[in-house]
């Protein structure tokens, strides 16, 4: 006898809204259906009504974790359309932030994987170390999440010698810790027993279903946009594409930790060979009619933007494909013939990113528990008043 159980759009096991409808027989999943759109914000439609520079900030808000991926992918496409070349120092800083973002995203995922597998001390260790890279990103860009460091034609903030030294120092610690996590992730018996063989995706299926990123690489498909279509600085740095051939969640853990180690290598090379000069060139307001396909290796896989311009200051069409959408058909395949208890683990293993956006916010008073619904403008007024009274923030220091 088969049952259908809905998981999501709101469910304790999933942190973001998506609906998975599982047909189960006993404990075994026999069919999976996926329904999206609970968080569809119409970004592609909005982009057609905003100008080139406004869209940079719009694309940054597609995702909260890989915000820099979307804005970089967009910026490098628009720079091609406008026929401008950013200065090399600007590019180095831009892709340094890219790699640091990959580090923070992979560390975040590694913690989530530990948590979903019931290994919460691993989760806490990893997330403690993630603060090192978050502090570095805050030091470089001024923000922890939406860095807003990109501009069309370069970057907005420069690095000084003290910041470079501090970043290099942070990387040493991160590297040491990540080597330890590679050992734990790949050999700790109870953790390995939980994740090995779970969420199997064969190489043939990964290719047929067009899987991307670490999901594809963990099935032994060594595809990485940074290697095959080296954009900007990636043909000047030395790194390897990490792969695994176990085709399961264990493989995805190993691939991501190895990628962390490669990212540290890239960051170090960028920081040591930082060229002197300007960080940005002035971009024109309009772009010539034309079209461009911009590809970028985001932490979760290939990110692709198709941009078409019609000669005005607004794009004719901006098509965005984030890596998670590319991995859904593969996820359906992984879940099939699995167990109910493995759903969160398998689903988390593609590092899904279904972002959130709200227009009205419910405030709950911490003291009385009273709820009040406020308008966005009131919330903004309250936030400004609060920041005005807040003490000046020091640069965070991590005692190591």
């Amino acid at each position, binding site marked *: 006898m088969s049952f259908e159980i809905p998981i999501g759009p709101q469910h304790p096991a999933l942190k973001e809204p998506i609906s998975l409808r599982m047909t189960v027989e006993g404990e075994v999943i026999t069919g999976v259906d996926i*329904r*999206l*759109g609970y968080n*569809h914000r*119409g970004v*592609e*439609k909005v982009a057609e009504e905003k100008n080139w520079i406004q869209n940079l900030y719009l694309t940054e808000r597609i995702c909260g974790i890989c915000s820099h991926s979307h804005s970089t992918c967009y910026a490098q496409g628009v720079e*091609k359309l406008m026929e401008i070349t950013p200065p090399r120092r600007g590019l180095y800083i831009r892709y340094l932030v890219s790699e640091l973002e990959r580090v923070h995203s992979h560390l975040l995922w590694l913690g989530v994987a530990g948590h979903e597998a019931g290994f919460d001390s691993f989760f806490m260790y990893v997330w403690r170390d993630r603060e090192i890279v978050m502090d570095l990103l805050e030091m470089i860009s001024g923000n922890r999440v939406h860095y807003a460091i990109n501009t069309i034609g370069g970057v907005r903030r420069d690095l000084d010698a003290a910041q470079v030294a501090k970043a290099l120092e942070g990387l040493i610690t991160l590297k040491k810790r990540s080597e330890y996590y590679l050992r734990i992730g790949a050999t700790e018996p109870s953790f390995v027993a939980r994740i090995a063989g779970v969420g199997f995706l064969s190489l043939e299926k990964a*290719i*047929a*279903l*067009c*899987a991307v990123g670490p999901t594809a690489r963990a099935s032994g498909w060594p*595809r990485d946009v940074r290697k*095959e*279509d080296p954009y900007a600085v990636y043909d000047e740095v030395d790194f390897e594409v990490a792969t695994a051939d176990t085709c399961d969640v264990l493989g995805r853990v190993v691939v991501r930790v190895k990628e962390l180690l490669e990212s540290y290598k890239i960051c170090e090379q960028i920081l040591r060979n930082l060229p002197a000069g300007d960080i940005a060139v002035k971009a024109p307001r309009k772009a010539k009619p*034309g*079209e*461009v*396909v911009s*590809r970028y290796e985001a932490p979760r896989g*290939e990110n*692709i933007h*198709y941009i*078409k311009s019609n000669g005005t200051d607004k794009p*004719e*069409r901006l*098509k965005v*494909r984030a890596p998670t*959408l*590319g991995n*859904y*058909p*593969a996820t359906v395949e992984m879940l099939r013939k699995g167990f109910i208890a493995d759903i969160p683990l398998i689903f988390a293993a593609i590092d899904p990113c279904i972002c959130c956006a709200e*227009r*009205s916010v419910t405030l709950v008073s911490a003291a009385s528990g009273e709820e009040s*619904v406020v*308008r966005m403008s009131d919330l903004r007024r309250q936030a400004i008043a609060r920041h005005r009274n807040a003490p000046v923030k020091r640069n965070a220091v991590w005692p190591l």
Partner: protein
Amino acid sequence: MTDAELIETLKAALGDKVEEISNPARRRLFLKVAPRNLVAVTARLRDQYGVVFLSTISGIDTGETFEILYHFSTPETDFNLRTEIPKAHPHVDSITSVIPGAILYEREIQEMFGLTVDNIPDGRRLLLSDDWPDGQYPLRKDWKHVRPQEVIPGGKS
């Protein structure tokens, strides 16, 4: 194989099935095909050139027609197959028989542009909500979003 050499072999192999091949930048090939040749060309590219990876499908509303772009890539180069279908008769063949991973992208363009993908194995709605009115296709150029008035529950609006 460089892009120029690849274009020569493609021209020889695909003959009149491909109307136009352009190469505006390194690693970017744009091939124009007629809608009726789409599946045949995709199958040919997969079997002869190892084009197995579809990044996404973009649709563009050009006024009288819909332009549909299939972004493929291989480790050597990127193929962008372009086909154009009239708005009056918006039908295009599904390529899922050749590339099974295309299914979500085909479902997406189908509901966003209001075109029909023939022979699609699963043509249900993917992104738009269940109570979305029929005949409303958000990514068409003549579709405008009207923001509904904000109503605050229990408060003065």
